[in-house]
Every structure is written in structure tokens, then in C-alpha cells.
């Protein structure tokens, strides 16, 4: 198995799918000639040519609409957003059109579009470039949302997304782009809607997604070494569809849950997960469910303050100890 970066894993997913299916195309700002704003699509123009790898104007509403239209006619576009924060100018296309066309056409029209790009804070790019809209998008029936935390999951989820016949929105993380991990050489996918137990434990379940999984795994190490606590870390991977059973199975084992996400807390993904746990595993709970999320304020520009705003290993450890009290 090769050890490659999260960025390379995403590129490999697109490359393999471009080869496998000639309906797959890549579109977005700077994806072709500039090799991608974050170099995720590097080399693809050279390999697949300008018909498959298409630079678009700086007009998200326009080119996402173009991709949605193309997808209705059988093309499988993989659209890159430079930041998911920019999806907000294309909200009508992303939510209203892509999310509803299959339902409103009575199942006659599919919209197999993939929209991908970074959706994260923590990089000192300010409030308007640091949004994490997975909860907002996942609240719409008809839309699928995934948040890979590792190179393996990034490749497997993106390939599954490209092959899926519904709109799938892939939220990446610029801080993870250089993270390395083992990725199989052979073809594989990570099915949508299947969570992954990233660490097995018995005393506490941490549910996380995206980079919060990495933070939680580090916290779990410390909790084990310094506090003798055995922590299980469940990586949601897919926000919608949500793998309820893996979450519940873990809580039934540990009886305590801490939910960690880099979203703002209000109406976050973990508000839904907390509801799920108390509703379907109430009798299993030995303590109230706690959450660690970004502090509820617009993303802070000052780097040192932003670091405090985001869920840190220290905050996860401290909150875990509260759940374990």
C-alpha cells in the first residue's frame, strides 16, 4: 500500500474515475491551467485535455448551474469550489435545483453532480472564507454530504460520490491536504452512509467528523496515557446519509458520549447526533452528552484567537473528563 497525502488521494480518486468513465469531467476556478488553487487537480489537464478539465469564470452560481444542467443530461461533473464558503453565492443552484430535481421530476431526472472543495476554519483566512456548511447542506433532503478525515477516506468517499446518482457534496480540509496515510493501490470505494470506528475503546465514545476526528484521536491518546481512560472514536465520514447504527452501537458499549465538530455549535451536526443518541439509546446513557465545537462567533481573524476558537486537543480532553465524571 502506498503512503500518500490527502491531496494526492483526492487527485487519484478523480484520475481513476476520469479514466474509468468518460462522462466524468472536472470544472472549477483554476482547476486546469493553474493546476488547482490548492493543487488538488495538478496534472489532470495535461493528462485528460481541456474537454475534460475545464476552467470556469469566477461565477459560482453560473458554473454550478452549468454543472447541474450537464449532470441532468448524463455528464458526471466534479465541480471544485475554491472554498465551500463561496457556495453561498450559488445556494439556489446547490440546494434548490440540485437537491430537488429528482423529487420534482418524479424520479425522471437524476443529478449526479459532485461538488468538492475545502470547508474549514483554522487557517487565518477570516470569517467569510472559513465556513463549514455541512450541517446547513445536510439539513436538505435530497442532498448527500461527506467529510473525509484521512487520505483513505478522502479517496474512497470521492470515488463513491462520483459514482452516486444524486448530488454529493464533499467537504475537504486545507489543513489535512498534506496529511499522509496508507491508501490501497487497487480500486476501492468508501460507501456513503457508513461511519468508521477509528479507535476502539470501552469508557467513552467520541463522535467526530472531518479534522475533528484527528483532534479527537490525539485527545484519546492523552486520555489513555494520562488518565487511564479507554476512548472509542467514531468517524461519521458521511453526514447524510448518517450511519446511526455505528454511533448507537458504540454508545451502547461505552454509555458515555462526547461529540466533537469544527462547526459552530448552534444547529450543528452534533445537535442532530445528540438528539439521535438520547432518543434511541436513552437507557444506555450514564452521563449527559457533551459537545465540543468551535466557539459560537464569526470565525476570528486573529490567528492565536482562532486557534482557541477551534476544538483543540486540550478542550477535547477537558470535556471528555467532564463526561467521564
Amino acid at each position: 500500500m502506498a503512503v500518500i497525502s490527502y491531496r494526492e488521494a483526492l487527485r487519484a480518486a478523480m484520475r481513476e474515475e476520469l479514466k474509468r468513465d468518460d462522462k466524468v469531467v472536472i470544472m472549477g476556478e483554476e482547476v486546469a491551467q493553474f493546476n488547482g488553487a490548492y493543487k488538488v487537480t495538478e496534472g489532470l489537464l495535461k493528462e485528460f485535455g481541456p474537454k475534460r478539465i475545464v476552467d470556469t469564470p469566477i461565477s459560482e452560481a453560473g458554473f454550478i448551474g452549468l454543472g447541474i444542467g450537464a449532470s441532468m443530461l448524463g455528464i458526471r461533473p466534479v465541480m471544485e469550489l475554491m472554498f465551500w464558503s463561496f457556495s453561498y453565492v450559488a445556494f439556489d443552484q446547490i440546494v434548490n435545483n440540485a437537491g430537488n430535481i429528482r423529487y420534482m421530476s418524479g424520479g425522471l431526472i437524476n443529478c449526479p453532480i459532485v461538488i468538492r472543495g475545502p470547508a474549514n476554519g483554522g487557517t487565518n483566512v477570516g470569517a467569510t472564507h472559513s465556513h463549514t456548511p455541512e450541517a446547513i447542506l445536510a439539513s436538505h433532503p435530497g442532498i448527500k454530504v461527506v467529510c473525509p478525515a484521512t487520505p483513505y477516506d478522502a479517496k474512497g468517499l470521492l470515488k463513491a460520490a462520483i459514482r452516486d446518482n444524486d448530488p454529493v457534496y464533499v467537504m475537504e480540509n486545507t489543513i489535512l491536504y498534506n496529511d499522509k496515510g496508507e491508501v490501497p493501490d487497487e480500486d476501492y470505494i468508501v460507501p456513503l452512509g457508513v461511519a468508521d470506528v477509528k479507535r476502539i475503546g470501552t469508557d467513552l465514545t467520541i463522535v467526530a467528523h472531518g479534522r475533528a476526528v484527528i483532534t479527537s484521536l490525539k485527545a484519546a491518546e492523552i486520555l489513555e496515557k494520562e488518565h487511564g481512560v479507554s476512548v472509542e472514536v467514531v468517524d461519521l465520514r458521511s453526514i447524510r446519509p448518517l450511519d446511526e447504527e455505528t454511533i448507537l452501537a458504540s454508545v451502547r458499549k461505552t454509555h458515555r458520549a462526547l461529540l466533537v465538530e469544527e462547526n459552530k455549535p448552534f444547529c450543528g451536526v452534533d445537535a442532530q447526533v445528540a438528539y439521535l443518541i438520547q432518543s434511541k439509546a436513552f437507557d444506555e446513557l450514564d452521563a449527559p452528552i457533551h459537545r465540543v465545537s468551535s466557539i459560537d462567533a464569526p470565525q476570528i481573524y486573529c490567528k492565536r484567537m482562532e486557534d482557541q476558537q477551534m476544538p483543540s486537543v486540550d478542550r477535547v480532553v477537558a470535556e471528555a473528563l467532564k463526561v467521564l465524571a
Partner: protein
Amino acid sequence: MAEIIDMPKLSDTMSVGTLVKWNIKEGQVVAFGDILAEVETDKATMELSCTVPGTILKIFAPAGQQLPVGAPICAIGKKGEAAPEAAAAPAPKAPKTAVPAIPEKAEVSCVPAAPASSGSVTPQSDASRTKASPYAKRMAEKAALNVAALSGSGPGGRVVGRDVAAAASAPAASAPSGPLNVAVAPPADGKGIQPDADVPVGGMRQTIARRLLESKITVPHFYLEVEVDAAPLMAMRESLNKRLAETGADAIKLSVNDFILKASAEALRRVPAVNASWAGTSIRTHGAVHLSFGVALEDGLVTPVIRDAHAKTLKDIAIEAKALIGKARSKKLTPSEMSGSTFTVTNLGMFGVTGFFGIINVPNAAILSVGATIKKPVVDAQDRLVIGHRMVIGLSGDHRVVDGANAAQFLQALKQLLEEPALMLI
């Protein structure tokens, strides 16, 4: 798909039930509403009716067996279908299941003796309000432990899973799980008065044991006694019964107890402070008098309830009491006919007992204990020695709810009503 029928919870306090009798056999077809079995709960023998039509595939427990609530008792499905496994069918439990860890509970909720004259009693954590995590509660239920008896190590004293686990694995001291160690008396040589034996007890006896122990050790009882001149009451009863007998077939006969019940309801109206319950951090006052009275049975006793006794006439009370006594003796009282009382009257007068003090029927604030009316010499208002008809009435009160003074006022009111019984008729 076959369905497993579990031992149902037929009353608030039921934790185990005894399958008195099966009315069906394996292989028999049953319809909705058919009576499957008779189940003896802690309070009554009740019929278990069928809610799943089909064929009886399997009977998991024979008649006579005692099972915890939720234990599988039979399976119903389609004819010829394989009977499902009674998943983890709990073994017939020894009587221990119904016995919570009472000794520790005493530590939790026992109240230090309060100064008799002071109205202030240190607020207690109400046992029913013990904080416990849902998981701990479920574990405790499985282990037949009472969470209220455990000390919580979680935040704010919350009982959590580890506390239940510790109690469940601890020796008998914290969780009585076997028969109590009764000092062994030497066996009778030759002719004893009865066999030396451990006699298993039924649900009703378990309930009596549990509830009265709980009351006696968690409720700070105090006792008052008053002697009543029963002559006017006896005279009125005799004359009323004589006239009532002449009314013919539907004649009712008033018992002494009927008068006591009526007088109690009326006395509670005058001193409503006694018609109340301790609710942990508050005193709950009750607007209606729901009057419970003890009925002795061969194997124990039950306490049926006359609802809204404050609004009923002597005749209403007499008729209702008679009906409830009949039902009690044939064990047909429903749980609702035995719950929700606000005050209890017990009477051992018919056995010649001259006076006694009952144990409070929680959550009542007091219990009245009525003795026999006996003839004895008394000094009358003119200082003459005369033959009196005297009845001794005892009151056991919950000092958290009532104090000596208001309990005494209640007895005063009761005494007046019994000595001038015509007051009861208005």
C-alpha cells in the same frame, strides 16, 4: 412471526407475578380477549387476557411459578411455526427480587428525631427523587437493586453505572440477595406445634414486608392516643340498624367501622393538615379524602380505598366498604381500588384488642388504629363512678408532615364526632 408474551406489570408496585393457573394449552388457538392465565400480583389475582391472536406455540413457565415482570411466559404465532427461544428467560427468582436494598435506604432517608414541638424538620432528599443516570437505573433494575439505596459518585451525587456495578458485586451487606441469616432454633423434638420449615411467601406478603419496613424505618412515626365514650355511638348504631332492618331486602347494616370511617373523613375536613403527604422537599396537601382501610385476609391484608369519602354519606360509605371487603376476600380488588389513599383506618376491635398503633401506610401522613369498645368503670362529669363504654383510638403520625398539636386537634375533632354521632349525619 411469533410473539413472546411477557409477564405484564399489572400494578404500580408489581415486580414479580405468580402464574396461578394456565387456562390454555400448547397448540391451542387463542383469540383476542381470551383469558390466557391467572396471575397473582402483590395485590390481587388478575386475569391475563390475550392481545395477540394465534396459536399457543410454547408455554415457558408452568403454573405455580413466580416470574419477574418482563419474563417471557408464552409464545403465540402461526400454527406449525417454530416456537422462538425465550431469550434469556430469567430463572424463577427467589423472593429476593422484590426486596430492595432496604438497609442502605435507611441511611439515605431516615430522619433524625425532630424536636417534638418544632415544626421544622431538615429537608430530606426524597428517595423517589434519587438522581440516577438512565443506564444506572436500567442496570439496577436488572440486578434487582434499588437505586435510591445507593450512594451516587457522579456529579451532584448522581448514581451512575459504576455505583450499581459496585453494589451488585458487593457482598450481601449492600445488596441482600439471599435468604436472611435467621438464627437457627433447635428443631422440635417429637411433636412440635408446626413443621420447622422455610415457607415461600407470595407477592402480597412481599409487598407487606417491603412497604411496612420501608415505612417504619424511613417515616418518623409519633403516637397519640385518645379514649372515646362510645356509648352514644353504640346507641345510635343500634337504633339505626333496627330501623334499617325493617326496610326489608335491601337493608344495610352499619358496622362500627363504618362510623369510624365517616367520622375520620369528617374530622379530616375539620383538620385538613392531616390529609397530606411528604413529597421530599414539600408537603403535598390533598383536596379529597381517599380513605383506605385494612381488610385482614387469611394470608395477609389489603387496604382498599373509598374515594372522595369526604363527599359521601354514612350510608354510601357503608355500602362501598362492604363491596370492597367482599372483593378483597375474593382477591378481586383491582390495583386502582387499592391505590391513591390519603388516610388509613385500621381496626382490631373485633378481636378484643383494646388499643394499638398501626404503621403508616406511605404516603399517608397518619394512620388511625381503632380498638374494641369495652365496658369499664369511669368517673363521669358529676364525679360518680359509672359503667362506661370506652373505645381507645391510636394515631400514628408522620412527623415530617404533621406535628403533635395538629394531630391532637384531629383526634379531638374525631372524638367529638364519635361522642356526638348525630353530627355525622349532617
